[in-house]
């Protein structure tokens, strides 16, 4: 079988040279990335089409304004810029890994690809935090004359227009059930436990609520969540598979596979993929967070 494998895997070539001065694997990686660019492109363009078909779209600065450990402070764009820089830096370390491969510098490859993996994992952790924050951290939304606690998920968006009609809000507050009142207050004020709040009568709870501070909104466009989680999820999946690929590269480098082969072309291909992931993020960043 091993001899058959020789026949199968030998690169027969008698055309003299590659017209593109590239080995076929890298060429295929490039065209794969082209194709993947169309997958992402289709997602982002669909998102654009839907966004243009809506009269209202949530302001990203209002949606993405939290930072881990900073509580309720309003820090628009802060966390996502950290994520962006993590990915840019991991792209740089990948470039250095590829370069070390050019120089047949095994230890250099190991060092830089390990840092790239760290960067990828850091990015994924950030994304996990952000998703968790959006999926669990809700706020009050006015629905059908009642106030509800709503979170950002695939089926609903709580970032609609801000309700400024105070009379409507006051009326809605009177229709709002006990549990929601408890949640609303607990959300803004951690001084009392849920049990303590639950024991209080509705009238007292209503008295504790400052409607102007609650910033009750209407429901926003449902598609926002679907596209946000769908596209960042698909991108996260790419980051994840990139981390896996880089880990395999790391192990293969450590085992000296490329050293024996005499070239580190596989690292270059993995590098192309990783940079593509970074590239996609640049556009996701643009479409979801900036504009």
């Amino acid at each position, binding site marked *: 079988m091993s001899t058959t494998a020789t026949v199968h895997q030998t*690169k027969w*070539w008698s055309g003299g040279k*590659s017209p*593109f*001065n*590239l080995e*076929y694997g890298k060429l295929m990686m*490039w065209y794969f990335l*082209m194709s993947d*660019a169309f997958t992402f*492109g289709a997602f982002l*363009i*669909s998102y*654009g*089409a839907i*966004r*243009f*078909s809506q*009269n209202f779209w949530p*302001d990203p*600065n*209002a949606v993405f*304004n*939290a930072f881990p450990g900073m*509580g*309720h402070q*309003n820090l*628009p*764009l802060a966390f996502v*810029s950290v994520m962006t*820089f993590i990915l*840019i*830096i991991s*792209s*740089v370390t990948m*470039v*250095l890994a590829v370069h070390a491969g050019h120089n047949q510098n095994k230890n250099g490859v190991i060092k830089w690809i390990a840092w790239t993996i760290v960067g990828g994992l850091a990015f994924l952790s950030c994304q996990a935090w952000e998703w968790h924050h959006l999926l669990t951290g*809700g*706020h*009050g939304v006015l629905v059908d004359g009642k106030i509800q606690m709503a979170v950002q998920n695939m089926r609903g968006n709580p970032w609609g227009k*801000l309700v*400024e009609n105070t009379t409507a809000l006051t009326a809605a507050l009177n229709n709002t059930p006990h549990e929601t009142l408890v949640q609303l207050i607990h*959300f*803004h004020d951690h001084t009392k436990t849920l049990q303590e709040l639950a024991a209080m009568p509705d009238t007292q709870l209503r008295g504790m609520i400052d409607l102007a*501070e*609650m*910033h009750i909104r209407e429901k926003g*466009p449902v598609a926002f969540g679907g596209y946000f989680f769908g596209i960042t999820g698909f991108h996260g999946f790419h980051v994840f598979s990139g981390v896996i690929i880089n880990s395999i590269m790391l192990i293969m480098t450590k085992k000296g596979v490329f050293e*024996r*082969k*005499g*070239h580190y*072309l596989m690292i270059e291909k993995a590098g*192309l993929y990783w*940079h593509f992931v970074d*590239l996609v993020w640049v556009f996701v*960043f*643009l479409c979801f967070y*900036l*504009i």
Partner: protein
Amino acid sequence: MDHQQDVVSPEITFQHQHSDADFRKRVRKTTIILSILTAIELGFGLTIYTIHKGENPNPTLVLMFKGMISILTLAKAYYIVSVFMHLGDEIRNMIMTIVVPLLLFIWFITAFIYEGNSYKNLRNRYDPHFRETMMPSQHHKADTAVKTQGGKE
């Protein structure tokens, strides 16, 4: 195996020469450029945010900033592809096989966005419910409250 570096594959006839110092300089330069571009983007993003907070947000101004951010993003994409992915070092025909198909995105984006917009106009005209519930009467003003908003964690 004692190959020379320039024969890693029979398909490759010449190897791009990167002198180490040159290369490091280029990577450093590109990293700085990317960081600065991102910083400017964030600056513009926050500018849009402050414009929204103001009394009379100017939609044209917002649109202008968004346009500038998009252009900066394209510049970032250019640097990543051309320097980090080494596409700039490839021969011209290779670059063309990548760049030319990307031109399809122009019509792809234009048609989809135009169509999305037209769908909105149709619904605003024929679907009063859609128009009433989703029309942003005071959209820009609505976000002024964001600065103090904290009810999310």
